[in-house]
């Protein structure tokens, strides 16, 4: 059976260690496998190329490789390949450094055993390893592909357009922006449940065209259907839509650093530094209507900075401040802004689901309490650099957690900006030494009992201070023909071993 699917994006390369791009990571996983991988249903890390692992010391983990695994060119999987691949991901031209941060080195123990030596205790090592796929050393050496493809140079390695992994599918053809064809690997070590023999992927950038392709039956599956078309799709007897909560939280951030906001009519002080103002803005948002109308139910309103799958999440941090316009007005008046104020507000318009519409709706809601937000929307190419230059007073951001651990978010979004990735997306430049201390402790805490509590505590402190205004966790819809069976994953990627076309 052939499985034809489409989404808006295109993968930049077939070199698995070149670009850390969510879409290509998902597609690469069909051809290359990692030592461990998430279970698509439970989201627990489970063995893949590694049969098992064992902690020799807090900084040394020993992995045993699966026997009888063969690469597509017939070569058997050995410890050399694993050592080579992890080192390759650590190379200068690789974009996978975030997944190898804690790794000191990889050592071959015997043909089917490797040790990973850590710089310090690393609670998220296994999560990181899910994204480090394994390539054949001999093949790479033979085909001048020892170094990951450097996207800045014209030098093209073999692995950029060719692939040789251990996965259930083999790369057959790749014509960028046109088609990507994978075929079933007959020598696959496992017994995947899929009945698909060929996978054809086409990037279709224009939303309407992508939907048309599904409606006309030219593709079986669309990864990113446009939300407004979902009622129609659901009503279509030939199609179905499945959805699930994505591990990504959409929230609004606020500049809490400047003493005066550019573009605001409040002079000499920064209203956003006032907790009451932040609370007012929070409570003025009618999240239910937003959920029902703008998101058409495709969101999970939240008061937390992370999604429920993430370690550190709890019911209590999930609870939102109530929607209460009166309270909001009162808070504003208390803070001395009875008639509201003007403030700059920036949003991306092609990054998150309905991002522009959400911001417009929020602007309208704030208008009711007198806060005049001057909305501008930008495409992501200009938006992200802009907010990183700290140019936005209020901005929208969505944060996913590939490690399924709240530290990832807290460190980037809440910690005072500093070295080592601290606060690298804390573009409101919020700073709270007490909160920083909690986050710093969580960085090295591996105790499975204490660690989640620490994270929850940090998240709660974040909520108490309204560092950000969380909105919702995105719910990702997938649209497909009735005869297609897939498992919805929170990281918005297909599990190739489980696809059924009936």
């Amino acid at each position, binding site marked *: 059976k052939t499985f034809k699917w489409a989404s808006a994006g295109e993968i930049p390369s077939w070199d698995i260690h070149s670009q850390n791009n969510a879409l290509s990571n998902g597609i690469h996983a069909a051809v290359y496998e990692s030592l461990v991988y998430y279970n698509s249903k439970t989201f627990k890390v489970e063995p893949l190329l590694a049969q098992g692992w064992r902690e020799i010391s807090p900084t040394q983990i020993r992995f045993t490789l699966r026997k009888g695994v063969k690469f597509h060119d017939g070569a058997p999987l050995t410890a050399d390949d694993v050592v080579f691949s992890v080192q390759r991901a650590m190379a200068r031209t690789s974009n996978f450094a975030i997944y190898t941060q804690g790794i000191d080195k990889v050592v071959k123990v015997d043909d089917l055993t490797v040790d990973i030596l850590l710089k310090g205790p690393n609670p998220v090592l296994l999560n990181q390893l899910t994204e480090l796929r394994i390539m054949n050393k001999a093949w790479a050496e033979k085909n001048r592909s020892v170094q990951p493809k450097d996207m800045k140079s014209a030098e093209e390695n073999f692995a950029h357009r060719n692939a040789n992994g251990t996965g259930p599918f083999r790369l057959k053809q790749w014509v960028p922006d046109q088609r990507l064809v994978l075929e079933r690997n007959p020598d696959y070590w496992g017994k995947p449940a899929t009945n698909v023999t060929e996978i054809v992927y086409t990037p279709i950038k224009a*939303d*309407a065209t992508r939907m048309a392709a599904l409606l006309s039956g030219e593709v079986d599956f669309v990864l990113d259907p446009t939300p407004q078309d979902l009622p*129609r799709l659901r009503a279509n007897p030939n199609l179905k839509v499945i959805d699930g909560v994505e591990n990504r939280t959409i929230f609004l951030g606020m500049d809490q650093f400047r003493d005066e906001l550019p573009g605001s009519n409040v002079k000499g002080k920064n209203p956003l530094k006032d907790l009451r103002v932040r609370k007012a803005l929070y409570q003025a948002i009618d999240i239910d209507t937003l959920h029902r*109308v703008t998101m058409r139910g495709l969101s999970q309103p939240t008061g937390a900075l992370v999604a429920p799958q993430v370690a550190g999440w709890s019911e209590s941090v999930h609870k939102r401040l109530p929607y209460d316009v009166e309270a909001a007005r009162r808070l504003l008046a208390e803070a001395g802004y009875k008639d509201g104020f003007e403030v700059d507000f920036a949003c991306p318009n092609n990054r998150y689901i309905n991002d*522009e*519409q959400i911001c*417009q709706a929020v602007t309208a809601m704030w*208008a009711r309490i007198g806060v005049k937000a001057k909305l501008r929307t*930008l495409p992501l190419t*200009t938006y992200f650099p802009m907010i990183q230059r700290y140019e936005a007073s209020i901005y929208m951001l969505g944060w996913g957690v590939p490690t399924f651990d709240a530290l990832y978010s807290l460190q980037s979004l809440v910690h005072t900006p500093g070295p080592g990735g601290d606060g690298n997306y804390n573009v409101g430049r919020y700073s709270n030494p007490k909160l920083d201390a909690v986050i710093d402790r969580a960085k090295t805490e591996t105790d499975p009992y204490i660690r989640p509590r620490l994270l929850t505590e940090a998240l709660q402190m974040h909520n108490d201070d309204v560092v950000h205004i969380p909105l919702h966790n995105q719910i990702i819809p997938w649209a497909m023909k009735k005869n297609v069976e897939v498992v919805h994953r929170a990281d918005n990627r297909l599990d190739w071993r489980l696809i059924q076309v009936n």
Partner: protein
Amino acid sequence: MRAAWMRWWDSDLGYSLRRSPTAMLAAAIALTCGLAALLAPWVAPHNPFDLASLDLADARLPPVWYPEGTWRYPLGTDDQGRDILSALIYGARISLFVGLVSVALSVAIGVALGLLAGFVGGWLDALLMRLCDVMLSFPAILIALLIAGVGKALFPNAHETLAFGVLITSITLTGWVQYARTVRGSTLVERQKEYVQAARVIGVAPWRIMLRHVLPNVLGPVLVLATIHVATAIITEATLSFLGVGAPPTAPSLGTLVRIGNDYLFSGEWWITIFPGLMLVLIALSVNLLGDWLRDALNPRLR
């Protein structure tokens, strides 16, 4: 005023307008759209740009003839709960503003440079015509993307007004060329005519000859081009909005409305798509028809 109007109505132009039903219809449509846009705050039932008045709960209501429709929103509402009818009127206001201003600027620049090139000639002519060549290599879309980029880099905070600036500048920058070329061509012809030389012999200063004698005589084709250009400028604005270089989202132009509506083509909420599209086509069509009529009416040989 009344007398002038009566005089016009009685002139040959007025007569040929009365004779052409399509032109009358087009004029009526254009007049209605124009007036509605001009008087938007008084004509429109709601102010779609007043965010505080928007109610998200009212979003995506269908037109009045549907069971769920209400007279509050005769043509339904869009995804933000904006009244489509009001949004159309306000959007047309922006589109017509952008269209008219950019065409007016193109005409002003193009006619001035064309006159200068044709009348002065020599190296100035050569220079201006090469400039035209360069400009021709850039489609309006590319210019817009460029200007948007440059503009945003230069004035990161002046966003709302900047959007119009970008639109108008880019449409103007690509639009003036056609006028410059046409006017230059006609000027070269007119310059040779004896009435221009007669004016010289009388001792009229060259720039006055250019403005008082040559200009009125080269304006005919310009007028016709301009009416067509208004329509294309509105479409260009719509296309630019489609590419995301358009009006700010809280104050959508007709083009932006069409672009937003584009997303609702398959969803069943057709009124978000169809009405702005219809309005756009109607305006473009009526202006084009008027241009067509004007071209025939101004041609004495067809009269």
